[in-house]
Structures are given as C-alpha cells and as structure tokens.
C-alpha cells in the first residue's frame, strides 16, 4: 500500500461523484414524465426483486467475514429472514428473526 496522491484523490472524488449522480439521474432526469414503452415497463417492474437478491446471494453463500467459506449460521439467518418475511410480510419481525438465528447459531456453534 502506498499513499494516495492528493490530485488523484480529488479527481476520483469529483468524477466519481458526478458519474454516480449521472447514473442515478439518467432516467428520472432525461425521460421524466414521457411514456416508456410497455415492454420496458414490464422489465422494470422486476428491477428490485432481481437486483437485490443478486446483490445478496453471493454474500450469503460466500460471506466476506469468513473469507468466502460457506457458513451455516449466516446461510440459516438468510433463509429464516426470507421465510419469515414471505410468510408474515413484516420487515421488523423478519430482521429480528434473522438476527436471532444468526446470533443464536454463532453462539451455539462458536
């Protein structure tokens, strides 16, 4: 590891900030209230239920905290959270069940 140059750092901060804003604004900003084609809307309806599970799945199967080794407490916590969430539709209850499973199993297996 070496020290990061101040010029490089500020270039990255500013350009990354502009770029990230651009990505976040590209559709709401440019399309606004113009109608989007039905096929596109049909795909967009599934953005959240596709992207977020895909974001989480590798972290569940290969957790960074265990250096990527499959971990029963974490996998069980994920299954319990999702299961309780699907059945009860209650976010807080799902989080508490998942956290309870994680800490319970970490304690029992630790």
């Amino acid at each position, binding site marked *: *590891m*070496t*020290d*990061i140059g*101040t010029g490089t*750092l*500020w270039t*990255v*901060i500013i350009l*990354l900030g502009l*770029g*990230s*804003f651009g*990505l*976040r*604004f*590209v*559709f*709401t*900003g440019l399309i*606004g*209230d113009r109608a*989007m084609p039905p*096929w596109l*809307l049909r*795909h*967009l*309806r*599934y*953005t*959240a*239920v*596709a*992207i*977020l*599970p*895909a*974001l*989480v*799945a*590798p*972290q569940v*199967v*290969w957790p960074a*905290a265990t250096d990527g080794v499959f971990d029963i407490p*974490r996998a069980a*916590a994920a299954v319990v*959270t*999702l299961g*309780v*969430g699907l059945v009860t539709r209650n*976010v*807080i209850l*799902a*989080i508490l069940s*998942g*956290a309870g499973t*994680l*800490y319970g199993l*970490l304690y029992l297996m630790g």
Partner: protein
Amino acid sequence: MNITTRKNYYRQGIIASSPFILVVVPFAALFGVLATEAGLDLVETMAFSIVVIAGAAQFTALQLMQENAPTAIVLLSALAVNLRMAMYSASFTPYIGAAPLWQRALCAYLTIDQTYVVGISRFEAEPQMSVPQRVAFFLGAVTPIVPLWYIFTLVGALAGARIPESWALDFAIPIAFLAMIAPMFRTPAHLVAALVAVGVSLPAAILPYSLGLIVAGIAGMMAGAQTELWLERRGVAI
C-alpha cells in the same frame, strides 16, 4: 390538507427506512476507518462520503487507489459497481418522473440501495399515491439514512477503531435486504425473477468489477417479464 398528507407520507417514509439504520451506521463507520488508514484526511474522507454517497463504490475506489491503479481504472470500476443505480433510476421513472426537475435531481442524489428499496416497495404496494406524496415518502425514507451516512463516516474517521468481528455486522446488510424484499413477492413472476437472478449471480460472481450483478439483474428482469407475459397469455390474472 395537501401539506398534511405530505407530512404524513414523509413520516411514514422515516418509519419504513428506520431498520436500515443498523446497516448504515457500521458501514459508514467502516469507510471512515479505512479511509483514514489509507491516509485520507478528515476533509477528504468526508468529501468522499458526501459527494459520492455510495458505500460499495467508495470501498472499491479506495481499494484500487491504494493499489496505485490508474485513475481511469479506479473510476470505471467504481462506476461499474454503481451501475445498478441507473436501473434504480429507470425503475423510479414511472413513479416520480413527473416531479419537478429539482426534486428529481435531489431524489437522484439520495438514491442508494436502502432508500431505493424502501421507496419502490411502497410505490408498488400503493399505486394510487400522487407524485408529491411519493417524493415526500422518499425524502422521509432518506432522512434517517443519509445524514447518518455522513455522521458515522466522521465518527469512523475520528475514532479509527474497528467494530469487533464477533458482532457479525457484515451480515446486517443481507438480512436487512432480504427482510425488505420479501413482502415484494406478490406474483409468481416476482418469484421467478428473483430465483433466476440468484441462480445467475453465483456463477456470474467470477466476472470482474461487479458486472456479474448487472448480468444477473438483467437476466432476472427478463425472466420476470417473460413469466408475466406467459401468465397473461394463459389468462391468469396478476
């Protein structure tokens, strides 16, 4: 009347996103710690969190800069990690696209994984919400999250102490997201979209720059859309 309902939606947004406080606080503190360890001063660390406001992309950029990667590579990698934000923007467009430009710009700046999922799940669950109500709700959802992102970056940078690994806070993120998306599975098409996205995300994890996430996300969205069409053709009401 109008102001009252907007205030009401703003308050509901705050309540809906409050579980994510547990996720944002350690994540922001960790960035503060790592940035300080990488030699950034307080102003640089805070500017990073305030200007970029994207956890995973900030970690990526910091890591690559420490490895002396060329600036263009640092930027492209971190932006690839943030590519999902463009999909969030597209997904928000039918709901808040009619809001004034400055409000859309403000919402864009404040769009992160947590605020997106809180916003979109409510917009989908309550289609009759007006555009000002949606914006009020989203700004409410932002209120407990984004200021804490700034504040705990600062706390991490000042304290410099690591959070004990035994707290297993690494897993706060998967648990919070899973809890948040579970109520969104309203139709078989939603389920198919998620299953395909998960199925693709595991082998696609070998792709560089988090591009596997985008590939998996698009595959899941296509699967959801096709399932919806198929169900419609079979006359199943969605």
